[in-house]
């Protein structure tokens, strides 16, 4: 088993990035004009990378499957973005952000990547403010912060519950400036179908124009994959309907290693599933855990009465409520990391304390916060602090100003008023820490092919902390990739334009054409969604919040046979050469059906529990995750080898020089 080389620069941790930047090769401004870069995906990572590469002088071609780059799913991120600014003077620092992220990731991420992330985090906020991103401010006109899970400081910058939207629109505006200057050529409604390799290097892609179905060849000196995560392998997730693994999976099949595929984040606070018709799940931001308290009834009789509609949660006395996170984790309380909060909710629901009809929901209650804020406001305004109605009204106003859009969203979906009655929430698939393996320069194992943002695996280990995805996406796109890619491209200044008439392009296009035609001529009986839902059920039941050997083995064989059935019996209406949503979906689901198998294989091989990966065979007496640092202190990097689950495992050992590896405790 050969080892993976992360190409980490030498020297002390704190100087690595600075030294690396000063020592890597550069491309002169005149030569940058001769070099083309393809960026697939226009979320925070892709949009920020496209804009910055174009600012530097490269010719950028950007692709998104949506009708505009502004629609990429980063737009839906709610709560905030972390940065080690220490504006609150609460003892935050680059080191502390680095430490929290490594610890939050349960010691399964690369130290030097995470340190770099923490280092550039402050620049991101400066850059975004300069772009006109309207972050929340206090009355003194300075930026406001809030807290997220797994940390003891306030370092999260936010724009109400729409932080992702505002950051993405900032990056989109930076892209627009470059599109206007002609430095970025934007391809909306285009999907990457395959990567083209020439002499072992990434030299272009085959894309499908989703409006007219035509296949197109696009060449470049380097290809950047920023296509996001693969949470939709579960069918139901907080991802957008179109979010998919296709670009990442295609490069995997062409030689890019896929790392830690089983590291998935199941987010504790989502609106519970209401029925079989459900097409997606909606997140309620983690920021709500700043002010909301999570509980279920202490007595099983109360649970029954609630389910039968005979009792409302507000009627249950304080002493009959089980604030189980505060009980189990007094130090972090409701702000434990996501994996811990999700498992705790599952534990209570499995024990029979779930509070909705399906038995899969817990309460997120704002009444104490409403009262606290109401009293504070009444005090400030010199009003009667004993007037309960007034206090409630004032408190609700404060809550509205902080989380208004989230409360409105909840009310529209569930048809209940969360200002009056506690929200009902349950964990749901949200983010994937695993992804394409990259080295320190964010290059995959294919020369000239890069992966950034959620699409790569590098920074979050086995669990991502809240408000860190936005930070990583923008760090990769604005501040890391645009510089590290120069080191590679400096070897390409004499290459000249890459022709798309070479056999490599012709063959790649032909292979895509054949694959698409197969779907159309299949004339099967079941829709694409039928298979996607079945795959989702296997993933959720056997590779979800809690995993064991028997289930994982079954998952592998069930996914294999489902995939076989899919190719035999899927029905895709319409033609290839037209706008055909079902065909686009079929291509994506075909790749999920392969990824799912590798996912289960990875989960099966990692017999320890760590972060979001909980193996029932590896837990403490109290039911907490039990890591095994002696055997699993590595990144599992998989090389494609025909059948997904027969991929070859290559280990990248993890070394911790600055941080002492400890058992994670939030008690």
């Amino acid at each position: 088993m050969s080892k993976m080389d992360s190409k980490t620069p030498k020297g002390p941790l704190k100087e690595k990035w600075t030294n690396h930047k000063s020592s890597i090769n550069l491309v002169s401004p005149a030569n940058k004009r001769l070099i083309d870069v393809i960026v697939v995906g226009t979320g925070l990572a892709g949009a920020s990378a496209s804009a910055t590469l174009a600012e530097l002088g490269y010719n950028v071609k950007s692709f998104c499957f949506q009708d505009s780059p502004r629609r990429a799913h980063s737009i839906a991120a709610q709560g905030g973005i972390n940065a080690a600014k220490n504006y609150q003077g609460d003892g935050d620092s680059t080191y502390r952000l680095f430490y929290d992220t490594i610890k939050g990731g349960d010691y399964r991420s690369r130290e030097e990547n995470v340190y770099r992330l923490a280092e550039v985090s402050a620049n991101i906020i400066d850059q975004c403010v300069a772009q006109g991103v309207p972050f929340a401010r206090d009355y003194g006109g300075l930026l406001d912060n809030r807290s997220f899970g797994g940390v003891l400081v306030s370092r999260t910058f936010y724009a109400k519950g729409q932080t992702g939207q505002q950051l993405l629109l900032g990056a989109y505006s930076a892209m627009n400036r470059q599109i206007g200057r002609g430095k970025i050529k934007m391809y909306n409604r285009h999907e990457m179908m395959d990567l083209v390799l020439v002499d072992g290097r990434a030299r272009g892609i085959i894309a499908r124009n989703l409006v007219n179905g035509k296949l197109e060849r696009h060449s470049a000196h380097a290809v950047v994959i920023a296509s996001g995560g693969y949470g939709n392998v579960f069918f139901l997730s907080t991802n957008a309907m179109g979010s998919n693994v296709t670009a990442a999976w295609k490069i995997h099949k062409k030689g890019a290693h896929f790392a830690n595929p089983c590291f998935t984040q199941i987010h504790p606070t989502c609106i519970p599933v209401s029925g079989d018709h459900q097409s997606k799940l909606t997140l309620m931001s983690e920021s709500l855990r700043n002010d909301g308290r999570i509980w279920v009834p202490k007595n099983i009789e109360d649970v029954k009465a609630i389910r039968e509609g005979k009792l409302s949660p507000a009627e249950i006395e304080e002493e009959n409520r089980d604030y189980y996170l505060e009980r189990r984790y007094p130090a972090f309380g409701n702000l434990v990391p996501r994996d811990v909060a999700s498992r705790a909710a599952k534990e209570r629901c499995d024990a029979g304390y779930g509070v909705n009809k399906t038995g899969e929901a817990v309460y997120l209650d704002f009444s104490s916060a409403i009262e606290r804020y109401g009293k504070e406001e009444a005090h400030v305004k010199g009003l009667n602090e004993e007037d309960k109605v007034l206090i409630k009204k004032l408190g609700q106003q404060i809550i509205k100003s902080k989380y208004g859009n989230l409360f409105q969203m909840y009310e529209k979906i569930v048809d209940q008023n969360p200002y009056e009655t506690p929200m009902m929430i349950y964990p749901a698939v949200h983010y994937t820490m695993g992804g394409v393996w990259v080295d320190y320069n964010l290059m995959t194992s294919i020369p000239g092919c890069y992966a950034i943002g959620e699409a790569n695996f590098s920074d979050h280990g086995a669990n991502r902390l809240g408000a860190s995805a936005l930070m990583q996406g923008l760090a990769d796109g604005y501040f890391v990739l645009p510089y590290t890619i120069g080191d590679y491209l400096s070897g390409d200044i004499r290459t000249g334009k890459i022709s798309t008439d070479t056999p490599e392009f012709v063959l790649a296009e032909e292979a895509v054409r054949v694959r698409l035609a197969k779907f159309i001529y299949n004339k099967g009986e079941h829709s694409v969604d039928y298979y996607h839902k079945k795959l989702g059920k296997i993933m959720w039941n056997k590779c979800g919040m809690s995993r064991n050997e028997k289930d994982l083995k079954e998952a592998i064989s069930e996914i294999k046979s489902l995939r076989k059935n899919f190719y035999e019996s899927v029905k895709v209406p319409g033609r290839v050469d037209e706008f055909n949503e079902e065909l686009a979906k079929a291509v994506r689901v075909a790749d999920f059906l392969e990824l799912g198998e590798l996912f289960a294989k990875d989960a099966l091989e990692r017999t320890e529990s760590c972060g979001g990966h909980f193996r029932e065979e590896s837990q403490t007496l109290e039911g907490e995750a039990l890591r095994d640092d002696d055997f699993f202190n590595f990144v599992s990097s998989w090389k494609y080898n025909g059948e997904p689950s027969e991929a070859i495992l290559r280990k990248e050992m993890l070394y911790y020089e600055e941080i002492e590896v400890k058992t994670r405790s939030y008690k």
Partner: protein
Amino acid sequence: MDLILKIWRQSNSESKGKMVKYNISDISPDMSFLEMMDVLNDQLIKKGDDPVAFDHDCREGICGMCSMFINGEAHGPDRLVTTCQLHMRKFQDGETITIEPFRANAFPVIKDLVVDRSAFDRVQQAGGFISVNTSGNTQDANSIPIEKNDADRAFDAAICIGCGACVASCKNASAMLFVSAKVSQYSLLPQGKIEATDRVRNMVKQMDQEGFGNCTNTGACEVECPKGISLENIARMNREYLSTLLKS
């Protein structure tokens, strides 16, 4: 619930479209409108018919991709929601629901309910940005305090999702609410003031070139906007535009 759907079917931008009637039954009031459409499409696929094409992505009201004109209103009868967050409980059992694409000269139909809104992108490309490069040496984010009121109003303008409901609702197919929201966001912030003159001039010019109509202050856009973008923004943009004309 049992429903009758009358849906605009048009195979591509060249062909002529028409309304087609479908019956659909066993719809749960807890379904979202798009989940109801999923059920319809599943039935059509089973029958061997072409499913109805419609744009959608995040299904949580923020990406701005979904765009139906339902019973004569952009995003349907509910207020402050996009079609993906509209739920079937807002309709009556047995009701006939008419579903059309967003209609405007600047938004040509691609297929069925899918329209091309790239005109919006081009308006943004003409000036919807602040010219600042990513250098890593930008001044500290707190070096320019911004009055909370201004920051909040900039935010209120910035939450536009670019769905095009304002254009579809306007009898003139004007894009003033959309364009003014971006102009306002930047004109309220010190960072955006430097290029304010060029921005408003270029964005308005592009808006006119795209074939959007003029604003006659009917206010329909504000009523139908799923994000509650205010008409004040249009007033602010007119002011900015006028001062640009005076300066030049």
